[in-house]
């Protein structure tokens, strides 16, 4: 038993060290001071977490931002939109990435402080499938809903045949590829089905859905892409950037105007042009009314407190968020995202001045 006790002491030491480290990490943010006195040269650290949908864009933007403000360090840890929001509420981070507005049961966590929504970009969710020899598959929301509720079980189902005349569909059984982790992609995909086909879609809208049994679950968009790639007959919802990176084939989806549109940055941007923008800049890009829009398009915001604790943090936030919705938008297309259409972007830029201390 002697060894066990010694190990207990060591474990306590490790725990203490970890606590000290995490405390140090918390207090290291926003300690810098503005050296130039104006916003031209800022120094300090911004910490952020949240949406993994934003992660590739944030990483690219952080790199590129170094040439704009070399004295500033920005850290973006993923973790999911829910984690980002709870980190912002507990004051661990200065801004949070989220794919959905703050849900009603979380509002109390923010203790009445005003949170500003800065839309950052739009992105299409592809219906990626694995059927050798079948290109240019067309799907409509009703068929997608039935596929993901396991009512349509084979690829040569009459409902799929009806909208794909002339395509030689095999009798392969359909394997569903879904997310094992809770995710903004799942939330927006299910929101699309609920909006487009409320009478057919029975599984609700949430970041985790109780899929029919037998669905193959993968971790992250990459995990779902991997399942689709390795399983003949599979269909999954994968964000455009990951579907492209994995070389998947994806379907064109019927939008609310009745057109079959392929996912792309431009068809996703088109979805943003007709959205109803609320005063707080929240909106839902799925099932857009624009005739050129890809219907399964979603969006992501960066969430920032209107009132900051220090003038320097406010300046740094203005500089970085301003970059994301300004020059940073040029990085988006090559990463597989869609830039904000001008109607949203101009309102987001106008809102920057609200950040203060």
């Amino acid at each position, binding site marked *: 038993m002697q060894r066990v006790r010694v*190990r207990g002491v060591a474990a306590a030491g490790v725990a203490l060290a970890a606590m000290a480290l995490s405390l140090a990490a918390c207090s290291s943010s926003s300690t810098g001071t503005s050296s130039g006195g104006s916003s031209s040269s800022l120094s300090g650290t911004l910490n952020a977490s949240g949406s993994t949908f934003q992660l590739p864009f944030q990483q690219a933007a952080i790199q590129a931002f170094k040439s704009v403000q070399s004295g500033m360090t920005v850290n973006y840890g993923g973790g999911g939109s829910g*984690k980002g929001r709870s980190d912002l509420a507990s004051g661990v981070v200065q801004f949070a990435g989220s794919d959905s507005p703050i849900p009603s049961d979380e509002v109390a966590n923010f203790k009445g402080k005003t949170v500003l929504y800065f839309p950052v970009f739009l992105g299409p969710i592809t219906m990626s499938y694995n059927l050798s020899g079948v290109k240019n598959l067309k799907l409509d929301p009703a068929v997608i809903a039935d596929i993901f509720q396991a009512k349509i079980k084979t690829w040569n189902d009459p409902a799929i045949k009806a909208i794909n005349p002339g395509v030689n569909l095999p009798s392969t059984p359909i394997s569903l590829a879904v997310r094992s982790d809770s995710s903004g992609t799942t*939330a927006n995909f299910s929101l699309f089905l609920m909006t487009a086909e409320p009478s057919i879609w029975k599984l609700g809208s949430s*970041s*985790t859905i109780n899929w029919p*049994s037998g669905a193959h679950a993968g971790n992250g968009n990459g995990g779902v892409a991997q399942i689709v790639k390795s399983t003949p007959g599979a269909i999954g919802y994968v964000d455009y950037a990951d579907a492209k990176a994995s070389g998947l084939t994806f379907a064109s989806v019927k939008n609310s105007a009745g057109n079959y549109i392929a996912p792309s940055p431009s068809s996703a941007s088109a979805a943003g042009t007709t959205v109803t923008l609320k005063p707080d800049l929240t909106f839902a890009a799925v099932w857009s009314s624009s005739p050129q829009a890809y219907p399964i398009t979603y969006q992501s915001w960066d969430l920032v407190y209107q009132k900051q604790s220090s003038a320097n943090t406010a300046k740094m936030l203005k500089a970085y968020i301003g970059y994301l919705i300004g020059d940073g938008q040029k990085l988006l297309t090559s990463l597989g995202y869609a830039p904000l259409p001008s109607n949203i972007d101009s309102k987001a830029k106008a809102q920057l001045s609200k950040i203060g201390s």
Partner: protein
Amino acid sequence: MSAVQQADQAAPGSVPAGGLIGHRGLGDRSFQWLALAAGLLVLLILVLIAVTTTQQASSWFTTEGLGIFGTVWDPAANKFGALPFIYGTAVTGVIALVMAVPVSVGIALLLTEVVPFRIARPIVYVVDLLAVVPSVVWGLWGILVFATWIQHIYASIGSAVNGIPVLGALFGPPTSGASFFTAGIILAFMITPIVTSLSREVIATVPTIDREGAYALGSTRWEMIRGVVWPHSQGGVVGAVLLGLGRAMGETIAAALVIGSSPTITSHLFSTGYNMPAVIANQFGESTGVWRAGLMGLGVLLFAFTIIVNVIARGIVNRSARRMRGA
């Protein structure tokens, strides 16, 4: 081996009585306090974890009531019943034990009774190396290599037993590479080192004189193991197995990757399932409200289950160790 010792075994079991402290030097005394403080700190951290997680889970307990043991976990419908995860934890734990225990006890007997020390040592190193593999590596290997390979075996077994009464219900279709069974196998790999080395330590306490006595009476090696080693060490081995079970129940990332992430209660071991640590790891990031409280509550239940298993295991090991010393 014991890299996997659990924190709850680290309670300060034998701090000497306070009366002795006064007669010692300053170094002794300060060491005494340091050790005591460290031991108490571990206890304090454990209690704080239990209190805060229970507190954060309270809205789940109050809104669901006995519904926490319901069979449906569906965040989109606001239903948070934990039974599918408890079931999955039990099933994967049992599969892991069924696979790991014979192998582990076999290795332990091989090391203590069959091969000489010179050869035993490298085998010990190799088995202990299994414990050093990080669990995320097990998980990734499990899902990318092992599951893709074994899914064809599942599929052929599934179609072979389909329709046969009990076998069909256990191993019949639907089959999937990521499943209860895959998770159980990966967990078996992960608990083999701890069960092996604890069993080995217990078996090594069997007095040499008893073994030699058995040989002197003309026993074969197998009769000696059955008649002397096993009665002496069975309590300790059972304890070692339960400690392994405790580890299998709490293992998170590897299980999250290979279990298939479908909250269903089914007898089909080759189909996708879920267990308690995996659902916490998968769903915590995006959860809100009662959902988040429910995940916290699963953590509390898991914490309670592993503590119970570990305390029972410790008790059995200690009792058998005491009995052995008396023998």
